[in-house]
């Protein structure tokens, strides 16, 4: 029993140590939602004749990134679904209701990365789990680094963008918006401030 306990303690100490070394290598960034240098936009065809644009105003998250070992990057973004804003109150009310996001039941949409496949210095494909409307799916999409460096106020920032297309029915959203509007494009523009 004593031996078992000792093994358990040693194992957890080792795990902690390895975790610590990873986070010590890659810098952690907080997504700059406070200064609104980050955007979660969406885009869906209207009747097949034009685009409807909107965004989620409230979200939070962070990522870890190191230009020397980008494959170790990690990211997590939590979106408050009730913050959807398509610049039309009646439509937003409908989108928040049970026909679409059902925000009372599903207040959060979460993306958490599981892998980064590096393509070149600025490009990678991120894979992770995305949960929306009570459905969790593994998705992959390309991300691109826009730039990084010191900001004029004593901090250090890096920015990324990523785009993916989701099929609404995959997430249990089956309200008929017409054959041209079955998919929604999600665009992430995220600037992080190094912690």
């Amino acid at each position, binding site marked *: 029993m004593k031996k078992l306990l000792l093994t358990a303690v040693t194992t957890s100490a080792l795990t902690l140590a390895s975790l610590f070394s990873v986070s010590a290598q890659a810098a952690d960034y907080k997504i700059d939602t406070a200064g609104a240098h980050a955007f979660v936009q969406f885009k869906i065809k209207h009747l097949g004749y034009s685009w409807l644009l909107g965004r989620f105003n409230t979200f939070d998250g962070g990522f870890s990134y190191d230009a020397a070992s980008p494959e170790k990057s990690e990211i997590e973004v939590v979106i408050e679904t*009730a913050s959807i804003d398509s*610049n*039309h*109150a*009646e439509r*937003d*009310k409908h989108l*928040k209701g049970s026909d679409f996001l059902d925000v009372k039941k599903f207040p959060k949409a979460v993306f958490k990365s599981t892998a980064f496949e590096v393509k070149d210095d600025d490009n990678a494909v991120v894979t992770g789990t995305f949960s929306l409307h009570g459905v969790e799916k593994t998705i992959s999409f390309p991300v691109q680094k826009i730039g990084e460096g010191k900001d004029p106020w004593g901090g250090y920032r890096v920015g990324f963008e990523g785009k993916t297309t989701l099929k609404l029915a995959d997430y249990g959203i089956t*309200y*008929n*918006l*017409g054959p041209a509007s079955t998919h929604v494009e999600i665009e992430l523009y995220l600037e992080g401030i190094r912690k």
Partner: protein
Amino acid sequence: MVRNSRSSYGWVSIALHWLMALGIFGIFGLGLYMVELTYYDAWYRGSLDLHKSIGLTLLIVWIIRITWRWINTNPEISGSPIEKKAAHYVHLLLYGVMLALMITGYLISTADGRGIEVFGLFEVPAMSVSFENQEDIAGDIHWLLAWSLILMVALHVMAAIKHHVINKDNTLLKMIRPTTDLK
């Protein structure tokens, strides 16, 4: 005959009462129906425009009705003193719920600063202030009030029928045609 007397309502009050009754049943039914319409229904947009137009028209009628009630005598209410008092407060509550319904409806549609067009004739502007999740909060209250009003109206109708059939008094009749006979 135009104005109210102590024994019955005049034509103006009677007309306003039944006009609002018609409007309220119509807008309630329309409200229930329009939220079930889907995006490709031809009336998906038109039904909401009509609902908003009727709602704001009812607000105008409501203001005229309250003003008319204010500057007129009201007929005697039948029943015991407690019944009279209850009838009076239920009437006030009906007016209050109607007003709150129209206000919450207005708040849903104007939450983004857009005004409301009334039958394409004129536009009621939005207020310059709004609060967080206005369209959702106002929407929830609007729904609750709508059902409350319809339940109260049901009670109101049953009470009128009870007075007519069981008490055999002129409660219902005095809202149908003006009378001059004093009781």
